[in-house]
């Protein structure tokens, strides 16, 4: 006999699909099948079932080998590391629940840490741009029900958010969009032709790193101004005007943007200009802009840090109150400049996703990695603590890319005796309280 669980939330990307159907064994210990998920999401669920999964903490030895230790030893090591550090960095938080993030905040307050999430290398510059100029936005359902103009700028949902186009942006038929794809015009801005751009009505093949020039040119074109130069950032001037007219003529438009702008030259300025373009277009029609957030709960981490400390990432608590400036308190800067003296990583993999100079610094610091799986980070940290898999083996609240909160579900039991990250963090927090009191 098997059990079927519906309305399951996919803990992969910021699209946070919540219509998965999962089949598990009758005793709830084995996950047998996943329906409705994209290839990546399905793989994520199935990976929890890997036979070679690490289920107990491991300590890195001098000779490079790893030795299994108990959870108690891992708790003690982590508590000591954080309590003794003068400027510990607590990084990650994007692949875990808001409940666990909240315990992380309590620890960070106790030890005066810098707490940062993966926005640092993802949409951090988006958050900076929003701080500079705001963000006119909407929920994904608004796009489904109303949008007839869609822009994908510097993002490739066909690869990074596989179900985005079918659930929300291109194909669905909503209340005012009964014709679905037919009545939607799609513009894709990307220096490459991609599987997304192949669907586009207009592909603006922008010169890599010149998005800012193109955006400001588009804004000027929307205002009916003359542009200087025949080719604007790799795009013929006529095409810029054509795009501006297409955008103005819609009834409801939306810009989705991704790493192509957040990580290229100009960074926050690119998004800033895209947001201002959106704002400008509201003088002619209705327009919104939405960041294609990566990790399934990076948005949630920004929310939790926001209501607890007032900043969405890179929060410096070392002075007993919260401060923020990603150019100083962001993980990349801290590691590059060697400002931190210890690091704890949870729910992320900087080892795989930080530039090499920063990875080297992690490898040289006292370090703990809390992650369900073996990752490049777990292999360079002094201690690896495997934990139950959020969204699969333990539930908890998550926030979609449009900030909509959805409570993720537990569908299968974790391997016996494994802690959840929330339990592990609580134990560490309790231990730190004892150490500090002594």
């Amino acid at each position: 006999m098997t059990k079927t669980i519906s309305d399951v939330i996919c803990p992969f990307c910021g699209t946070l699909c919540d219509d998965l159907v999962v089949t598990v064994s009758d005793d709830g210990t084995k996950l047998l099948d996943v329906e409705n998920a994209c290839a990546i999401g399905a793989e994520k669920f199935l990976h929890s079932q890997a036979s070679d999964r690490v289920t107990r903490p491991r300590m890195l030895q001098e000779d490079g080998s790893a030795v299994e230790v108990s959870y108690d030893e891992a708790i003690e090591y982590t508590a000591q590391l954080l309590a003794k550090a003068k400027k510990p960095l607590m990084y990650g938080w994007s692949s875990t629940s808001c409940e666990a993030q909240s315990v992380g905040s309590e620890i960070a307050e106790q030890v005066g840490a810098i707490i940062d999430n993966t926005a640092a290398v993802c949409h951090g510059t988006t958050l900076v741009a929003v701080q500079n100029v705001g963000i006119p936005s909407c929920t994904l359902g608004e796009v489904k029900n109303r949008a007839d103009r869609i822009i994908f700028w510097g993002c490739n949902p066909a690869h990074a958010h596989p179900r985005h186009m079918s659930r929300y942006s291109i194909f669905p038929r909503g209340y005012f969009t009964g014709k679905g794809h037919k009545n939607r015009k799609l513009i894709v801005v990307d220096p490459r032709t991609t599987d997304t751009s192949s669907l586009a009505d207009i592909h603006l093949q922008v010169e890599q790193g010149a998005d800012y020039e193109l955006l400001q040119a588009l804004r000027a074109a929307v205002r009916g101004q003359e542009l200087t130069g025949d080719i604007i950032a790799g795009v013929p001037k006529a095409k810029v005007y054509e795009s501006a007219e297409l955008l103005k003529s819609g009834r409801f438009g939306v810009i989705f943007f991704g790493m192509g702008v957040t990580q290229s030259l100009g960074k926050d300025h690119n998004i800033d200009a895209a947001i201002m373009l959106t704002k400008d277009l509201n003088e002619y029609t209705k327009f919104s802009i939405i960041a294609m957030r990566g990790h399934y709960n990076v948005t949630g981490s920004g929310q939790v840090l926001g209501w607890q400390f007032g900043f969405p990432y890179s929060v410096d608590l070392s002075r007993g109150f919260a401060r923020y400036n990603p150019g100083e308190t962001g993980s990349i800067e801290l590691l590059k400049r060697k400002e931190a003296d210890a690091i704890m990583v949870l729910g992320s993999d900087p080892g795989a996703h930080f530039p090499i100079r920063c990875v080297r610094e992690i490898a040289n610091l006292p370090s703990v990695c809390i992650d369900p799986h073996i990752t490049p980070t777990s292999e360079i940290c002094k201690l690896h603590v495997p934990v139950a898999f959020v969204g699969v083996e333990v539930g908890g609240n998550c926030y979609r890319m449009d900030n909509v909160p959805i409570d993720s579900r537990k569908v299968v039991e974790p391997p016996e005796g494994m802690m959840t990250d929330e339990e592990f963090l609580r134990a560490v927090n309790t231990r730190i309280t004892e150490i500090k009191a002594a």
Partner: protein
Amino acid sequence: MSAISINLISGRTIQQGVAMEGGKEKDKYRKACGIIEMDNEDFKKLGVMKNTNVEVTSAYGSVVVKAIEATQGPHPGVAFIPMGPWANTVVSDETYSTGMPTFKGTPVTIEPAPDKQVLPTIKLMRYNCWGEEQ
């Protein structure tokens, strides 16, 4: 055979996503991310066959990956390594004080390296961090 200079970007691919969720220590991940996607034109300039190992070097580091033909293209002058440890060995860590490295838009040179191997994830990490033997 000669070295070429090219603009490097990195990012997600669905293969990278699937392999990442399947386990980054596995060979599937190396196969998905230890690659560089290049245009036909750039292959010609470099003078190597497709699916040859190459050494990519930037101001920030150097890494051996397998050169494959771009599945999404054309985009001459722009090469793509999927996000992951191989890409990050060479991408620019310049942030302009925004906290964000320049993952897209690093000038690199590519040289044929048919005799060198693409390191598996963990070996690459150890080599990069502690200079452990290949």
